[in-house]
């Protein structure tokens, strides 16, 4: 039971309203993987019992392969294979083939996933859009797009990297889905000094996303060192748009800072400071 959604985070992990963008930030040592999995779980798991709920997920991951997500999803009772078979889940793999030589990347492509072969933005966009339209064609319903570490494209593009083009691609993708969840690294060296183009591009991209986002969940390590029973701190802040909308959605944008602990069995505990 501990593996399910932590009660404190439940209001933040439900399906976001239409056109919204949710940003999850991570640092070295405090990864967003467990949070992404809980997001997937809270969105996809209810549909298993209820055939009317037709929310679907297109998942793009640039740092991790499907095996990792399947393995850790299974720990919290999320069967991605089954969901993929029911056309509720599509995976776009941005790790296995992006920079590997062709002959090495060719073999064994499992049906539920698309493998990105080229880091060109146009190609990436068309592949992801292809995945979205495929899953839309199967059945009608809301599509949630999850982009895991899109910032990798920016870092590996070097001189050719174009923050504006990447932002445009993101807008294009967001147009065709219900809502978007993104994870981006927010390590101090990447955003603070901005001496190299790598750093300034990253900072520009992250700030741009953060301003567009409706809600931001940032993970970081404890400021005071490490503790045996705390993995890190999660801070939830609402985006700049959410302030103007004073309607019923205020519950999900309540700002909060809580601690979390990921256990050895994959279960997550979330608690207030001092509890």
């Amino acid at each position, binding site marked *: 039971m501990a593996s399910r959604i932590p009660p404190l985070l439940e209001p933040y992990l439900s399906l976001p309203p239409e056109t919204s963008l949710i940003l999850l930030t991570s640092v*070295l*040592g*405090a*990864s967003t*993987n*467990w949070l992404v999995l809980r997001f997937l779980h809270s969105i996809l798991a209810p549909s298993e019992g209820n055939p009317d709920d037709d929310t679907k997920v297109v998942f793009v991951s640039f*740092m*991790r*392969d499907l*095996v*990792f997500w399947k393995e*850790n999803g299974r720990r919290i009772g999320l069967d991605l294979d089954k969901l993929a078979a029911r056309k509720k889940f599509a995976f776009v793999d941005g*790790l*296995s*083939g*992006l*920079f*590997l*030589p062709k*002959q*090495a*990347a060719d*073999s064994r492509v499992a049906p539920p996933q698309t493998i990105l072969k080229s880091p060109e933005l146009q190609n990436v966009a068309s592949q992801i859009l292809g995945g979205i339209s495929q899953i839309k064609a199967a059945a009608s319903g809301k599509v949630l797009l999850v982009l895991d570490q899109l910032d*990798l494209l920016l*870092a*590996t*593009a*070097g*001189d*050719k*990297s174009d923050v504006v083009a990447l932002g445009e691609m993101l807008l294009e993708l967001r147009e065709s889905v219900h809502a978007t969840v993104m994870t981006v*690294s927010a*390590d*101090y*060296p*990447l955003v603070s*000094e901005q*001496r*190299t183009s*790598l*750093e300034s591009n*990253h900072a520009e991209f992250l700030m741009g996303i953060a301003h567009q986002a409706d809600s931001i969940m940032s993970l970081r390590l404890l400021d005071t*060192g*490490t*503790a*045996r*029973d*705390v*993995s*890190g701190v999660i801070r939830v802040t609402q985006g700049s748009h959410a302030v103007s909308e004073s309607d019923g959605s205020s519950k999900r944008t309540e700002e909060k800072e809580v601690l*979390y*602990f*990921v*256990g*050895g*069995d*994959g279960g*997550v505990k979330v608690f207030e400071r001092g509890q």
Partner: protein
Amino acid sequence: MAFRKRNVGIAQPGSSPSSIEITEKKSIPGVRPSPLDGRPTTSTGTHSLDNLLAGHAGLVLGTSLLIEESGTTDFGGALLRYYAAEGILQGHQIHVFGMNEAWGRELPGLGSAESSRSAKKETAADDKMKIAWRYERLGEFGVGARDRTVAPPSATSSGSAGTFCHDFDLSKRLTLPSTTQMQFVPIITRPNLEFATLDSNKSPFNTFINHIANYLSNSSSNTIHRVIIPTILSPALYPPHASRPEIVLQFFHALRGLLRKYPTQLTVITTLPLTLYPRSSGLTRWMELLSDGVLELSPFPSTSVATKSAPGVTTVQEEPPQGMLNVHRLPIFHERGGGGGEASGFGNDLAFTLSRRKGLVIRPFSLPPVEGDSEAQQGGLESDHGKATKVDIEF
């Protein structure tokens, strides 16, 4: 019938997948399942480093380590040599990037203590409780990096499993059994024609990625590959354009892709000179994010070591530490979110010592007792109510 069933249950305690792994992997030397979740792991050739890796008691196959080192010392290089030597003894395939055969001739040889100690262990084992015989070869699981005197797993304790991590002696040299087991891939800084200009858009890493990918796709699934990348981006070895983010980060990403594609065959250890690429730079941070484990070695300046080992302190058997070790990220552990791995040294103050026989030993850092401390204590006691206390305080 019921009796039989219960018997089976006792023979396979814990999760069933781990026991399946044991029977499967027994055929591959130098690989054993992790005591945590049964993933196949292999040894880094350094006992205390194996114990540091978040309770897996070895480097999980399909993961990479990035060892960063500041200053001009080469402790990271020593770790790489142990890693290579361990691979040679286990019959693993080794790929070294950017070094020539001379590097391979400097691998440490087997320590002479290995054979005598295992004989001694056999007698000692009789006195031990027999309950956890299955876990005995896992050595000091749970002990973390505290102490390695508990003795490494020996070949005698579980018969067919073989030694997981050997003891090496830095003063000896390992004789390479065959040249094909160790591949040296040079960095091509110049095209074949000496006078042709350097193509700064061509990645010097491409040949290496192709090399590993070829070897992996052509070898059987029982071959374990160890990839060694010493002092990546050092200007002594690499052309200047190699440190451009697009080139080096694409290489790290491709390596990560390969590691995930062959999760039971490949491990990678890379060392990075931190003085040239400080941790405060975005490039280094991206390299860390793309690696599974990140360790930082910060050696002490040599003077402080000299003063510590002053004569007179005979009670201190431990050698003075030669530097601090910081754990920034551990394979599997941090990818899942971090936490729950009490056995890991994450966040502790760890120090390391490199010695000829014991290799690199990592243990929690503690300051040695100050010399002449007893006098100061006595003085403090005598003048408990006196003025001397004030003087003591006001230093």
